[in-house]
């Protein structure tokens, strides 16, 4: 009478199939991390390195991510690869809003992360002013190795579930408002440590 009786009768040798036990929540997170499809949001130089990551030599399919989805509705991770201009920012936000929950964002390269060397009128100084970013990949452009490391980091974060908790605590979405840092009237002297 089923598995339980087999075990009672014959011990563990009575089990016909392999099985594992886990919490459903963990299983869901595990599977989410291993089949997260990226939305190809290629903007500039970084997009070329992102495509190189998808090609034969670096082979992103090892992480279950080879399916670059053109439609945001089928994607889980948005890799913002490149500089985001003022004209592009509303489009970027629109694409982000079209993605299904749960969704994550990797900001690839310094231009997307902080504006990089283009601190000027045209570039949004950090894509985190438009969408919530989970992992920042440094470099100009980040090498495929860096991007793979960023993806690995994100996978780790997805498995722990921390990200979604944090986002639901902050009311979901990127209601981030960045204001210019207050400039102190008096310059603050830099104190050097003494021995």
């Amino acid at each position: 009478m089923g598995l339980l009786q087999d075990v009672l009768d014959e011990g563990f040798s009575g089990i016909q199939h392999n099985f594992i036990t886990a919490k459903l929540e963990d299983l869901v997170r595990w599977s989410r991390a291993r089949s997260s499809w990226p939305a190809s949001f290629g903007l500039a130089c970084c997009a070329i390195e992102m495509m190189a990551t998808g090609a034969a030599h670096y082979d992103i399919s090892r992480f279950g991510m080879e399916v670059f989805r053109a439609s945001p509705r089928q994607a889980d991770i948005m890799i913002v690869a490149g500089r985001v201009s003022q004209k592009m920012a509303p489009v970027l936000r629109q694409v982000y809003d079209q993605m299904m929950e749960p969704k994550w964002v990797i900001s690839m390269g310094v231009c997307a992360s902080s504006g990089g060397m283009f601190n000027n009128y045209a570039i949004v100084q950090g894509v985190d002013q438009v969408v919530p970013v989970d992992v920042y990949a440094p470099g100009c452009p980040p090498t495929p190795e860096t991007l793979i490391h960023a993806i690995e980091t994100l996978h780790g974060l997805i498995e722990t579930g921390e990200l979604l908790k944090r986002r639901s605590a902050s009311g979901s979405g990127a209601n981030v408002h960045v204001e210019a840092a207050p400039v102190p009237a008096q310059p603050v002297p830099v104190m050097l440590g003494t021995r």
Partner: protein
Amino acid sequence: MSLVQQTNEGGQELGARSELTAKELLREVGSVLRMSEAEAAALALDEIDPTTDQTMIINMGPQHPSTHGVLRLMLELQGETVLRCKPIIGYLHTGMEKTAEQLSYMQGGTNVTRMDYLSPLNNELVFSLAVEKLLGIEGDIPERAVWMRMLLSELNRMSSHLLFMATNGMDLGAVSMMIYGWREREQVLRFFQKVTGLRMNHNFIRPGGVAADLTPGWRDDVLSILEEVEPRLDEYDVLMTGQPIWRERLQGVGVITQQEAIALSATGPTLRCTGLPWDLRRDQPYLRYDELDFDVIVGSYGDAFDRYAIRLNEIRESIRIVRQILERMPSGDYRIQDKKVTPPPRARIDESMEALIHHFKIFTEGFKVPEGEVYVAIESPRGEIGCYIVSDGTSTPYRMHMRAPSFVNIQCLPHMMRGGLVADAVAVISSVDPVLGEVDR
């Protein structure tokens, strides 16, 4: 404000047919190219009655997998046929020309190399040539630096065209071609990484020469690239050039005439596909291209297949050029020994205070460039890339303007697409091979 309103670009977008005046409509359906009025009238405007709204305007991009970045096209369709098309650009506008006014001539390379990110070395080269012309030292660049520049820019042309092979294949559904194109490109990039330290955005070619000498064993590295890529090009021929599906998909698609291409200022493969052999490497030689033996590849029909074939054969020509460079690479200095523009060698900094100050001055203040203005143009993989610099005698450019080939070539898209099928739109965009970083700068 709703998101739709936020992303609306008003007058930059394609207007509805019913809202246009007859003159505007005529222009948009192609009467611009010195067409006689009779010919313009024969464009059959009255076939479509503006009141019965039988046409549909669809939006393609800026987030679209086959628009090579963030190009946005608005297409007016009647059924499957494209009636009008308008590219809307600026989604990657980076303000580089403004930023260039803040950076010294020494730092300018970091800026321009990020414009056309598929051929960064060509961008640095044209910027360096323009600065050298302003300084009046263009004749004093050491031979080795000149030949190294040629070697790197030809290898860059190969990697850029290989990437075109990959993306062109991907856009047309030949996904295996994408994998192959990237595989060969990686070989070239690995050599770049070895020599310049970076895979892209090298800032290696600088005013006065190049940043460093070639690495030991570079000759074998280059030879192994050539030996690997050359037979693979024949494989591409088998896989694509002779394949009926590929030919069917590209031949006769996106046709542009020679007259149109010249009128629209198109350059590079977009001009050469119409049969005009115009290549700045041969027609206005720079560096030592006049001493090399190579052919200018031209097409004859001006269609997307010609542009594909030109690029494929240009890789072969680049291989031929690189082989000649390998034979003739001179020894010597890799940068000009002019104290004004060249920092002292690293070893000198440790022993000499003057050298340290000199080094510090060059990298913080830069060098002063005499007043004047020049326009220098070279042949990048995409066409004529020109650099216009105005100097006011300080160490930063007063104005730096890049004549970007993609920015100009993209104007051909409406003329290539008109009357074609919407399914061919992707093939046409891909065949022009625009790089949006360069279009928008």
